[in-house]
């Protein structure tokens, strides 16, 4: 078992979710940015998903393919390794983040290069590859527009698909104007905050990097076991640049990204774009199988990353989370994410999927507040294209978080006491009487206002009605029991 610290995933020193959320909620600009962005994408997703009247059948198929893959993951990985190798690629296995970083660093060093261009990838984000490469004297240039915004701002990603969702166009403009010059081609004079102009600035800034890069690092959306084909789904063309122009391509993928067959992609290529960017198809999808003479990189390395995934696989309820295709639909529909943003989750995986993935990758005791960062409203489950029952896993991880604390908390004692009362109609009736008396004593004109102590969080923003003079069961006994007696 690896120590969680060797796994990355979370940002060290991040506060617990409720505290981080409290701070984030004070940022009214952030909330406005998030509300605008998530409501835009929600409508688009619903429109394109509803075009397909077999959407549910596609989800069922996707969930079953992912389930089958997980249950036979060893089989499919060995098959993938063989087919990638046969096609001219080299496969590496990494138990954890540290090992994956070491492998990639050595591969880059072997090329003699000190710069790499990168395609947005959650796996390399998870293992902290850029930071690790920097320590080794290698500069990694993020080429996805949102990742570029994050990198230029020395910021953290806050969304799986759109890491800079917390920034609005004006903030991006200011950042480009101030920072691009430090990294290469500066932003043009008089840059406006029109997204098209900002995209143009990014194009000019990165063009030279693409044309001269010798090494690229990518993630993978899918890897097909039977053919050895790797798939990257993108929009801007930065992915195509990285996958096509350099001599060496290093792809880091979580072991759960394997799918059994080429034809299985027919399911995922319909679900993923519609769920993530709300398009019928994303602008560019690249697939490659090993290396091709005269087209693209002459060296291809595939790094298969565990980093807590086998621990996740061992949990028969939590296992389903490995089906995630990183579309981020769950983030976009989540009412909690919409208010707090992604940084509050303290992990490269924010939102509902992050709340079930992060604790499993690094151990629930190391992310104990994340499973509670949800109202269990179920919007994420409805939106998930591979039908991950996120509320089910959240509730399951809550039980694990409680168990990890061994019952030695005030909450556990209170819950146990409540359990005793609730398992006895007599004790419940007594408690109701006490609550009625106590609550009515606290109440003014029938409502209870602000309270000190553990209930302040509730009572700071809500009045509570005073409990009634008589409970339902008391009313029933007085008004119905005798009637029933007469009838029988």
């Amino acid at each position, binding site marked *: 078992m690896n120590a969680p610290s060797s796994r990355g995933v979370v940002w060290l020193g991040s506060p617990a*979710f*409720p505290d981080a*959320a409290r701070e984030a*909620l004070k940022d009214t600009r952030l*909330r406005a940015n998030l509300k605008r962005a998530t409501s835009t994408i929600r409508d688009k997703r619903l429109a394109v998903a509803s075009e397909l009247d077999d959407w549910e059948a596609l989800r069922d198929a996707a969930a079953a393919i992912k389930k089958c893959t997980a249950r036979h993951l060893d089989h499919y990985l060995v098959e993938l390794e063989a087919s990638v190798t046969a096609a001219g690629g080299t496969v590496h296995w990494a138990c954890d983040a540290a090992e994956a970083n070491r492998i990639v660093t050595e591969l880059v060093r072997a090329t003699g290069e000190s710069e790499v261009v990168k395609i947005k990838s959650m796996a390399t984000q998870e293992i902290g590859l850029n930071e690790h490469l920097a320590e080794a004297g290698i500069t990694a240039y993020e080429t996805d527009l949102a990742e570029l915004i994050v990198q230029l701002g020395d910021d953290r990603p806050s969304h799986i698909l759109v890491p800079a969702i917390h920034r609005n166009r004006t903030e991006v403009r200011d950042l480009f104007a101030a920072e691009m010059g430090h990294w290469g081609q500066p932003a043009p004079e008089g840059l406006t905050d029109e997204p098209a102009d900002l995209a143009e600035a990014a194009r000019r800034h990165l063009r030279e990097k693409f044309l001269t890069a010798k090494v690229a690092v990518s993630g993978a959306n899918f890897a097909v076991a039977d053919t050895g084909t790797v798939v990257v789904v993108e929009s801007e063309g930065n992915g195509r640049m990285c996958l096509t122009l350099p001599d060496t391509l290093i792809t880091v993928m979580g072991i759960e990204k394997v799918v059994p067959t080429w034809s299985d992609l027919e399911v995922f290529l319909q679900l993923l774009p519609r769920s993530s960017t709300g398009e019928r198809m994303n602008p560019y999808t690249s697939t490659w199988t090993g290396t091709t003479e005269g087209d693209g990189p002459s060296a291809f390395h595939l790094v298969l990353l565990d980093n807590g995934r086998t621990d996740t696989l061992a949990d028969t309820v939590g296992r389903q989370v490995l089906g995630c295709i990183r579309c981020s639909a769950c983030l976009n529909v989540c*009412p*909690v994410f919409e*208010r*707090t943003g992604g940084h509050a989750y303290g992990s490269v995986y924010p939102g509902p999927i992050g709340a079930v993935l992060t604790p499993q990758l690094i151990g629930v005791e190391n992310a104990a507040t994340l499973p*509670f*960062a*949800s*109202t*269990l*409203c*179920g*919007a994420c*489950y409805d939106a998930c294209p591979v039908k991950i029952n996120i509320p089910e896993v959240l*509730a399951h991880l*809550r*039980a*694990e*978080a*409680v*168990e990890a604390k061994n019952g030695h908390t005030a909450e*556990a004692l209170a*819950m*146990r006491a*409540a*359990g005793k009362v*609730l*398992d*006895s*109609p007599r004790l*419940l009736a007594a408690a*109701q009487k006490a*609550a009625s008396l106590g609550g009515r004593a606290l109440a003014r004109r029938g409502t209870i206002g602000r309270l000190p102590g*553990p*209930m*302040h*969080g*509730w009572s*700071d*923003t*809500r*009045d*509570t*009605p005073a*409990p*009634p003079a*008589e*409970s*339902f*069961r*008391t*009313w*029933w006994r007085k008004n*119905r029991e005798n009637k*029933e007696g007469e*009838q029988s």
Partner: protein
Amino acid sequence: MRIALFITCFNDTMFPGTGRAVVSVLERLGHTVEFPQEQTCCGQMHFNTGYRPDAVPLVARFARTFAGYDAVVTPSASCAGMARENHPLLAADYGHAQLQQQVADVVPRVHEFTEFLTDVLGVTDVGASFPHRVSYHPTCHSLRGLRLGDRPLELLRAVKGIDLVDLPDADSCCGFGGTFAVKNADTSAAMLADKADGVLSTRAEVLCAADNSCLMHIGGGLSRRGSSVRAMHLAEILAATEGGTP
């Protein structure tokens, strides 16, 4: 048909009027309602907060108490959902074969109140009259848990004199989430603020839902803002007649 009312511990303690309303509607429709006194709680709070073993005796009590009834009717979508989805799971993980059997027997006969009216009794017009402007909030457990769909709205539309208005962003969560409202009070309050804004924009006199827990949260937020909008369980609207509320 032997109908048992599962009032839920929360309604029993805080909102007995909802229970009286359910009884009133069902009796008006010609049914006899029983209230098994041994009932307490479905165990939802323990389950959702991670205290599964503490919920197991409550699951056993529920199965025991409601064995033998043709229908167990509850005015709470979330408690109905808890029984339906999670009682079998808890029985399987922690219980013996006998408990699993008892749970399997009772669970299919558990009905949320509006679902019972429309699906089991086949009624949409319960003879109610409520001449007020009303908005309906579909709680998450009604909408995505039990998939009640338009059932509550069909019942409300049949109420005489009602002025039913759409709630903007109706399907977004109000931020209650049980212990979420305490553990993540700030986020809960932010969600509540948006929901309350939506309610106020409707100019409704009454906000109704199929769960008093969410209603206490939204109503509490409205009350703190000095609003006169009343939060009422849907059953209480269905119980109202031209003679007034029971």
